[in-house]
């Protein structure tokens, strides 16, 4: 069982949809979640409007900016300083948000799409299909996430696409398990049985009734998965499995390439690192806030 699992199992699957309004109220009263919302908004806006925000071309290398050493720190001209090949670090960090957002979104989409599909089929059909699919998911879950991502990325050959796929595939069993649980929980509800009795096709029941009720745990898990995706992608980049073009302004790659300057120009490694921490923290805060907001059991105390 993974952490996401343990934490999201709290969320009850048969919560009525009127929950949303209450959840929102609770969410905005949670200070941590507000911070998360702010951070994530900042992250997404930066990623979307990178062209406008960045003052320079992130790939434009101009050695004269170096002034013979490595490397000039933050200045009025170059807010985050200049990297070892004469590029503006601020512009690179800004565009880096775009890459991280892309990686995160693609990875989670892959995980959610296949996971939800597999999980709902497995849960609804039951029997041999269920056993087969779940065994496969168990095997995948038994391998630690980062290791599996490394394995997949190594197999596909290093690169941006491989990282996205690798991190995405790691998410599949989590969502599959989640959906299966949700479907199983609802399968024998009265309204489902009634619909079956009337002759509503299974597929319609699945898509129109069961799935919408399973959304809230998926949203929480998805937010948390996005956070993990960004971190794991950075880790893969650190190990050399990320984008192979070193001029790519991706935070993980930037970190790897600037670690050797930690003593002479620490800002080069620290700033992308902090960017990763802040963005990931934002998603984790929101995800956590959502989880608490959507779980009625956590309200109140003895």
């Amino acid at each position, binding site marked *: *069982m993974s*952490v996401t699992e*343990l*934490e999201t199992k*709290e969320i009850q699957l048969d919560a009525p949809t009127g929950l949303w309004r209450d959840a929102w109220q609770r969410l905005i009263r949670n*200070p*941590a979640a507000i*911070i998360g919302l702010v951070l994530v908004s900042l992250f997404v806006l930066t990623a979307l409007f990178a062209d406008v925000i960045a003052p320079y071309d992130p790939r434009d290398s101009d050695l004269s900016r170096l002034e013979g050493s490595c490397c000039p720190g933050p200045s009025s001209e170059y807010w985050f300083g200049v990297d070892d090949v004469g590029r503006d670090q601020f512009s690179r960090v800004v565009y880096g948000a775009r890459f991280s957002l892309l990686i995160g979104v693609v990875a989670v989409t892959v995980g959610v799409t296949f996971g939800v599909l597999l999980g709902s089929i497995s849960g609804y059909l039951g029997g041999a299909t269920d056993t087969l699919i779940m065994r496969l998911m168990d*095997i995948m879950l*038994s*391998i*630690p*996430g*980062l*290791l599996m991502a*490394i*394995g997949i990325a*190594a*197999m596909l*050959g290093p690169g941006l696409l491989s990282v996205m796929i690798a991190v995405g595939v790691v998410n599949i069993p989590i969502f599959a398990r989640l959906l299966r649980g949700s479907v199983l929980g609802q399968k024998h509800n009265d309204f489902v049985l009634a619909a079956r009795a009337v002759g509503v096709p299974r597929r319609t029941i699945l898509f129109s009734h069961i799935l919408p009720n399973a959304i809230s745990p998926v949203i929480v898990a998805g937010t948390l998965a996005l*956070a993990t995706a960004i*971190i794991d992608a*950075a*880790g893969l980049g*650190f*190990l*050399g*499995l990320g984008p192979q073009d070193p001029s790519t302004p991706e935070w993980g790659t930037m*970190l790897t390439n600037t*670690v050797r300057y*930690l*003593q002479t120009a*620490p800002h080069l*490694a*620290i700033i992308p*690192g902090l960017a*990763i*921490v802040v963005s*990931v*923290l934002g998603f*984790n*805060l929101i995800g*956590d806030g959502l989880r608490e907001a959507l779980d009625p059991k*956590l309200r109140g*105390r*003895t």
Partner: protein
Amino acid sequence: MLRFVVRRLLLLVPILLGLSILVFLWVRALPGDPAAALLGERATAESIEQVREQYGLDRPIHIQYLAYLRLVVVDRNLGTSIESRRPITEEISRRFPATVELAVASLIFATVFGIPLGFFAAKRYGGFFDNASLVGSLLGISIPIFFLALILKWIFAVELGLFPTIGRQSVEINVDHPTNFYVLDAIIALDPVAFSDALWHLVLPAIALGSIPLAIIARITRAAVLDVQNEDYVRTARAKGLASSVVDRRHVFRNAMLPVVTIIGLQTGLLLSGAILTETVFAIPGMGSWLAEAIEASDYPVLQGGILFVAVIFVLVNLLVDIAYALVDPRVRLS
């Protein structure tokens, strides 16, 4: 209980077999040519063909697998590393204890700080400490391990000089290593200087590696304590007039520990993946840094043998955790 254990042990065989096939296929799926890789720097088209024939790389894949299986199971030979030219079993005997030592140290750090943190956060539910520790533990899982390791190393080892920067032991320490667990070896040799030196080298890596388990353990402890606190038997105990601390110790703590212990057992995977990054930053010669180097260098035998070994250990540890859990919670045995 016995039936449970026997059933699980029997399941081991197909699991291990499946793992070996998986690893075998995975190594073959890696880009690059093993024949070219082992010829190294001066491979030519003819010599690659020669090597292929010589080492049976052109035989059908299931034959290759069976040959490999025989090598591993019968001869207990996991192959030889291309990089170091040493037998892989020898490297493992040297590197595995290093990783285990680090993992244990990290787990101790995570547990010693995580459980009290989670406990007090639950006791002060909704208060400042609770919220602060919540953000703190979320921060813990938001920092990439290698970044944390780098920062810790830079601040505490390089700039402040409080800790050693790399490795497992300082140069001037001269102690025998019968077990390759440096802390243990120091105890065996009754050498307090070596003992503290080994411990000192573990501090920063353990903090870096243990940061995520710390956050998780704190969260789970908090959740578990909150759950238990709301249970009827606890409220009954309080209603009866028992002192809060007694209730805490006798009922809340004990019962909350159940899910926490499970979580601790499940940290193996996280520790393993984190070890790859931590060991690289601190230059600790363990399994993690070894596999990272092997991936970079396309050292196929190491990847095959090393990962298989790690996977087997992983399965065994999970088995032990399951058995331990079943011992404690009778409901599990019946499932």
